[in-house]
């Protein structure tokens, strides 16, 4: 419980916020993620007033396209963390995928083959994480931190330290639109909606909550916990792969240090800001989406507002902190929806 916010009455494990009345902001309290939404709206209004280019549909589409890669990873991570797992290697997995895909394409493989092959590879990598976590008792964070390093190296090896361009292969995915909506965004939305629905409306999703909430009970209730874990880690891997391909299609090339830890940390930040507990048992896709959007908007706003590049991390950090605090002040963790 220490990784969650400490609750005043732990015997009511999932009702921490109910333990102390919070008169201030109680109006927001009813709305889930009220705090996050408030901060987000503030950010948007402020930026819109200062930089007119912000509200142009072009810019808004940019923001959405820019966050879609993170969104896909964050989506998978939300489900995994809700089930009490953790994959710190998703960014690096994505990096490996970009590298391998770039190599395959530049060696004249067809896009279809490449996509299928790399997605399989990424899923396999996720599965390996799953095997380690499930069949040894190594803490997920530890295991995947190690695999993250390992995969970063693998990506370098695959690229042999060079950058590999794929010309305009896959650029359809990366740059063109459907009915004015970027393909990348469509993919991200599909993934998030799918994961969101799965978490809310399928037994698979509910099993994740049960496992994250109390793994013993899950097992005793007839849930095949090991199988579920493997599936979840494999899924996380697969989504990392997808994110990798999206990244590649955007950049048109794979270079060392693409994706990797940077991407991972952004995704993790988005997920936890969105209210998913590191300790498992609670998580929501809407929260994650808000987290991802917030980060995207901040980054964009900082550019449009011409904030000195040294101040940018300062502001980003500050906004994250404020968002987290405001959010906690009126969080009502229900039975995980």
């Amino acid at each position, binding site marked *: 419980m220490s990784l969650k916010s400490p609750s005043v009455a732990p015997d009511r494990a999932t009702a921490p916020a*109910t333990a102390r009345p919070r008169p201030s902001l109680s109006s927001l309290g009813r709305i889930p993620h009220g705090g996050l939404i408030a901060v987000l709206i503030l950010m948007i209004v402020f930026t819109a007033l200062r930089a007119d280019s912000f509200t142009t549909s072009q810019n808004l589409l940019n923001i959405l396209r820019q966050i879609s890669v993170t969104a896909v990873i964050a989506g998978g991570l939300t489900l995994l963390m809700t089930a009490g797992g953790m994959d710190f290697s998703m960014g690096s997995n994505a990096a490996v995928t970009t590298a391998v895909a770039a190599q395959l394409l530049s060696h004249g493989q067809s896009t279809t083959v490449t996509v299928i092959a790399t997605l399989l590879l990424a899923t396999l990598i996720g599965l390996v994480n799953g095997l380690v976590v499930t069949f040894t008792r190594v803490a997920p964070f530890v295991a995947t931190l190690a695999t993250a390093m390992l995969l970063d190296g693998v990506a370098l090896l695959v690229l042999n330290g060079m950058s590999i361009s794929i010309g305009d292969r896959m650029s359809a995915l990366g740059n063109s639109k459907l009915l004015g909506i970027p393909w990348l965004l469509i993919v991200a939305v599909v993934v998030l909606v799918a994961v969101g629905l799965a978490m809310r409306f*399928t037994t698979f999703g509910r099993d994740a909550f049960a496992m994250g909430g109390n793994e013993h009970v899950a097992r005793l209730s007839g849930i095949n916990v090991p199988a579920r874990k493997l599936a979840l880690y494999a899924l996380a891997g697969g989504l990392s792969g997808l994110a990798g391909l999206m990244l590649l299609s955007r950049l048109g090339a794979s270079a060392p240090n693409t994706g990797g830890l940077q991407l991972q940390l952004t995704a993790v930040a988005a997920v936890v800001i969105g209210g998913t507990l590191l300790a498992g048992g609670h998580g929501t896709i809407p929260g994650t989406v808000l987290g991802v959007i917030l980060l995207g908007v901040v980054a964009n706003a900082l550019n449009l507002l011409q904030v000195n590049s040294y101040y940018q991390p300062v502001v980003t950090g500050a906004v994250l902190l404020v968002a987290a605090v405001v959010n906690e002040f009126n969080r009502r963790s229900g039975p995980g929806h």
Partner: protein
Amino acid sequence: MTGRTETGTGHGADRSAPLVRVRGVTKGFGGVAALKDVDLDLYPGEIHALMGMNGAGKSTLVQVLSGVHQADGGSIGVDGHDRSGLTVRKARHLGIAFVPQRRELVMGLSVAENIMLGDLPRRGGFVSRPQMLSRAREALAGLGIEIDVRRTAGELTVAEQTMVEVAREVRRGGRVLILDEPTACLGAEAAGRIRTLVRRLRDEGVAVVYISHYIDEVLGLADRVTVLRDGRVVRSAPADGFDAGELVRAMAGRDVVSHRPERPAPADEIGLAIRGLTHGRSIRDFTAQVRKGEVVAVLGPAGDAQSYLFDLLSGRRRPLSGELHVDATPVPMGRVPASLGSGLRCVTGDRRALGLVPGLSVDENLMLADDRFHRRRLHRRGELARRSAARRKDYGVVTLGGDPPVGSLSGGNQQKVLLAKWLETAPTACFLEDPTNGVDVAAVADIHTLIDALAARGVAVLLASSSAEEAMRLADRILVVRAGRTVAEYDTTAITRDELVATALGGAPQ
């Protein structure tokens, strides 16, 4: 024992000055009230029992008294000074000690450290381990408990943990000692010791708040009884003003009768057979055969063989040796799926750790196992609520508000959810551990009836318990275990409760 006569001493105390004065306290959770305008006076040298049905608000009230929760309204006065908005630490400084309903120990630390936590003995800035151990031993010895203080708290059985917690609070002393269902999961001897201790403290002038669901225990122990119903005080009077019947009526608002009904004679074929079950020191060469429609109780002192049956039968843990047959087909041991697949349903006595997912809603917990057995792919709230409604009703699950996280339910209601979760999954055979742990009188009766019905349906029921009544009330046969071995077997018709207690448990009741 002679609880009645002892109650006299309580009245020796100065009636004019209550140590703690609670006035018009209200407490709500998410808009719904758990306590409504509650008054309470605690006098030094008095054992004040709180009684009420599950969810009546007992724990909430004492949690407010001990600063775990802050009241939404009303006042709390300690020796005349207003102390509303108590925090845990303030309460402790005021000498209010609290043993919660839920076991609260640092499972990773040693028993000694748990007992001494908050004032570890120091020498030259460093913790003096010898002193810590010796003082912890004293604290336990004071209650006549033998537990190696160097063991890790996590290794202890729930009974042992309770004793340690009581010892901890007693050692810290204070003028008010609050015990929330301390005997709910204790064996006869342990429970007896707790009561003796409580009396001693009372006689030393401590004000004791004592929560329990056991009528006779309360009547035998308390000087004053306050009854809560739906968060209101319905009656508060000296204990000698009550008799069992009234007390039950006050709590339940109706009479509760629970007698052993006529059940159809058990069928001949064996529903559940355990042979030569052995696991370390815990349980040795245990053998039991339960016919379909039969209820067999395994009765033993707290923490004896029967407490290990759940882990072994549910498949959580592989025994060193032994075999299990359900409906005449052998079941591989040490594998949960195998155990479930055989149609055996094991209901733990440790609902918090092994029974429920606190974060999930009541309905989801109710249907958790069943939906998995039926391989349901989809999960829809409305439809789930419809399916679980019947179970809520049959098992009398009371919640504040629609479908809260099960973790927010009162102890007894959680227990009901747990039973409903398992007993409604069409079992061939059932293993029940402590089915009425922390459940109120009315619910106990209901649950007993449900178990009768279960047997009547032709299910083989194995019951692990250390409650002689429960065994006598439910079982056709009783296996008595001791030090991991089966020492005797009785036919319920062929023995009286007192014989049973005398021969089996040694520890005579009060």
